[in-house]
């Protein structure tokens, strides 16, 4: 019996087994969070699909300018922020702190611009008379589904920017490692993945013709 087994009791040796996924526990935890969050967004999108299918007068209000054009720019910004996040993670793994901070800063800036454009879109719709349970065009639940889906996504983007700033600060001070940057990067890419479904299902199937 080895010394370590003796010191903790042979019955606990299994506690020391290697992780079956060979990844740090924080990364596995983030993956589990992402999966549960994906199902949450899935449930919201299915609920939206249910209401849309059951409503004969579902509105199709999104004109090319400003709505669809705005969404195109937002998509470009979010996908680009995923690229800058990847470069931040690579720089962190290479131990290049200044470059990591630059790429993280650019990612946060792009996330903030995305959130600003999203809020501008909301304000435009509210000025057109869209509320949670009423709108000028048709099915009253349009506003509730639109604001809840895009609102939850916007909340994720804002939370992501806050999380990135906390991780960036910790990394700059040497308290956090490249592993932490990679883990928050997973979350940021997930926000991008969700947007890939929100755009076609919420905006593009409801374009004004």
């Amino acid at each position: 019996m080895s010394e370590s087994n003796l010191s903790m009791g042979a019955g606990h040796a299994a506690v020391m087994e290697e992780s079956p996924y060979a990844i740090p526990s924080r990364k596995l935890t983030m993956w589990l969070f992402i999966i549960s969050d994906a199902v949450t967004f899935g449930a919201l999108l299915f609920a939206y699909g249910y209401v849309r299918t059951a409503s004969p007068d579902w509105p199709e209000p999104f004109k090319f300018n400003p709505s669809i054009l705005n969404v195109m720019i937002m998509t470009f910004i979010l996908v680009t922020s995923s690229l800058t996040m990847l470069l931040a993670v690579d720089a962190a793994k290479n131990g290049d702190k200044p470059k990591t901070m630059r790429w993280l800063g650019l990612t946060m800036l792009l996330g903030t611009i995305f959130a600003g454009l999203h809020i501008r879109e909301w304000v435009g719709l509210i000025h057109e008379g869209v509320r949670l349970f009423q709108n000028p065009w048709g099915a009253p639940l349009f506003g509730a589904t639109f604001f809840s889906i895009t609102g939850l996504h916007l909340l994720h983007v804002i939370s992501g920017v806050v999380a990135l700033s906390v991780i960036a600060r910790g990394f700059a001070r040497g308290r956090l490692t490249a592993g932490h940057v990679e883990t928050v990067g997973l979350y940021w890419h997930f926000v991008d993945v969700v947007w890939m479904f929100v755009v076609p299902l919420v905006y593009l199937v409801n374009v004004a013709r």
Partner: protein
Amino acid sequence: MNTAGQPKSQVQRYLVIYLFLLALAGVQFIFAYQHAEGVQLLVRMLAVAAVQAGLAVMYFMHLADERRSLFLTLIPATIFVLLMMNMIWSDSFRLLHFRLLAK
């Protein structure tokens, strides 16, 4: 972009996937203004979105570089749960037809 110090092939892979994701997003915008409507439009959109999500998860989130056991633990169960949610459609169509009969 200054990407010195990083493995060139890795950055090239990121750029290729990035451009591919933007191109697929462009395809979705084109689909939106074609004449397809209803289920046909939805299926096209979802197919493109699924390819985009797959690329992002496998290469941006590096699931392709992890052990296969992680992929097998996470992805099939998620897809199964999302597929099971499709049960709601029959009820939403019933709701629509009841509404029309009531008119």
